[in-house]
């Protein structure tokens, strides 16, 4: 069953008078439950693609058809207010998404295990702590599809284990779109991978093949 489909998806940025095309009539679809890896060199437009799919960046032309709910992009920066504490960010999310405060607090505390620093401004967090908070908060809302931009790789061993349990264990039926340069991780997690190069998506028959073409760029 198709979860989402990009049809002639084009994304341009306007830099002054110059038009910078990042994605040029990209076509691909993601099945429900699929773990799709997106490979590409720095600046190929992987994060942009994730943001466009997450509805954060507007589409220049083309269309995305959704057949499932999609999370906000889990990435460094964005989604959180740095001057607010993790706890304040949680309260904001609870209010916006209409979640029960106590239940969510329990879950996020248990998952992120930030201890006292949960009440400190997010800007003082290390990247690992940031990742833990981002994951905990987005898993507190049951999306059908999670968009993960690099952020998963920075956690420590315990966090990796918890992700393993929560994301790949209990939520094994969910769709994942993962951007990463960690090929071991991609091989382990993804069941399909595409390569983003020269503004286009290049499909591959297997993850290994996609990784091979990524290295031969």
């Amino acid at each position, binding site marked *: 069953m198709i979860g989402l489909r990009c049809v002639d998806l084009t994304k341009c940025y306007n830099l002054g008078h110059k038009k910078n095309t990042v994605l040029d009539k990209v076509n691909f679809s993601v099945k429900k439950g699929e773990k799709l890896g997106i490979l590409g060199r720095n600046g190929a437009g992987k994060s942009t693609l994730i943001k466009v799919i997450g509805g*954060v960046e507007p589409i220049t032309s083309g269309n995305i058809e959704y057949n499932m709910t999609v999370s906000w992009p889990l990435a460094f920066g964005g989604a959180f207010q740095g001057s607010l504490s993790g706890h304040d960010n949680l309260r904001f999310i609870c209010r916006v998404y209409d979640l029960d405060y106590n239940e969510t607090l329990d879950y996020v505390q248990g998952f992120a295990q930030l201890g006292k620093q949960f009440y400190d401004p997010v800007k003082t967090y290390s990247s690992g702590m940031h990742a833990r908070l981002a994951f905990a908060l987005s898993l507190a809302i049951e999306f059908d599809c999670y968009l993960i931009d690099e952020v998963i790789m920075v956690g420590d061993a315990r966090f990796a284990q918890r992700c393993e349990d929560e994301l790949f264990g209990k939520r094994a039926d969910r769709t994942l779109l993962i951007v990463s340069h960690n090929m071991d991780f991609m091989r382990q997690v993804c069941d399909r991978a595409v390569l983003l190069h020269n503004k286009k998506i290049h499909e591959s028959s297997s993850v290994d093949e996609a990784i091979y073409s990524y290295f031969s760029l």
Partner: protein
Amino acid sequence: MHLSKDVDFLQRSSRSAERHANLSLFQAFCTQVRVIFALIMRETLTRYGRENIGFLWVVGEPILFCGGVAVVWTAVRPSHEHGLQMTAMVITGYIPLTMFRHALSRSTKAYEVNSSLLFHKLVTPLDIIFARTTLEVLGVLIAAIIITFGAIILGYMAPPVDWSFTYAGLFFVIFFSYGVSFIFAYLTERSDTLEKAVGVINYLSLPWTGAFVMIDWLPPQYRWILEDTSPLANAIELMRSGVFGSKVVAHYSLMYLFYTCGITFLIGLYLTLKIRPHINMS
């Protein structure tokens, strides 16, 4: 035990993102109200933090400003000008002025600094600017109540002769502030030059707001400047006609106020609905 609790957590449909898709009109309205409330709470925290009196600064800031000016002017100026109480003049002038200016200056680049909120699909630019303006308006409004009643109780100001005119004037000040705030939020997002100019515009428009004078004090041939071009001056006249009653000749037109504030608001609303593609995400 622990596991079963987790499974329970997972299966609760109340946590599913699904229920935010395909909303009926009423549900969408409830969502918007919820989001705007969340934004106001968040904005209060980001701006004032939890140090000392924290969120009370929302009200404290305008009180210090309006109250300070009222006290100073009452002390140094003659107690009556053109037969009107000085304190009442200052309060009826400065409160609308502060509301308008705060709304205007907070609207500049409102979207750029809040772009991270747009990561959440339920949050729209309209919610952001509405919440931001509401926080300003509410802060000044509460400050206004405290200052006005303070002045009345201390005997520096007579209670308004007709409250309904005062409220009507205040309503139009608020209405106009929202419209201007929406428009400038759009314009400053599109033009950096304008963003720099907002401070100057804010300052140069001071006489044009009619906060310091009654239109009737002006020579007849210049009255049109405030009467026909300044919704804010009209609204303040309306307010003062309520506060001073028959002691003043107020120059305002309800029709004019209705049209200008309404059109300003509609233009602002239209622009706000068009801004999304122009917001640079950080």
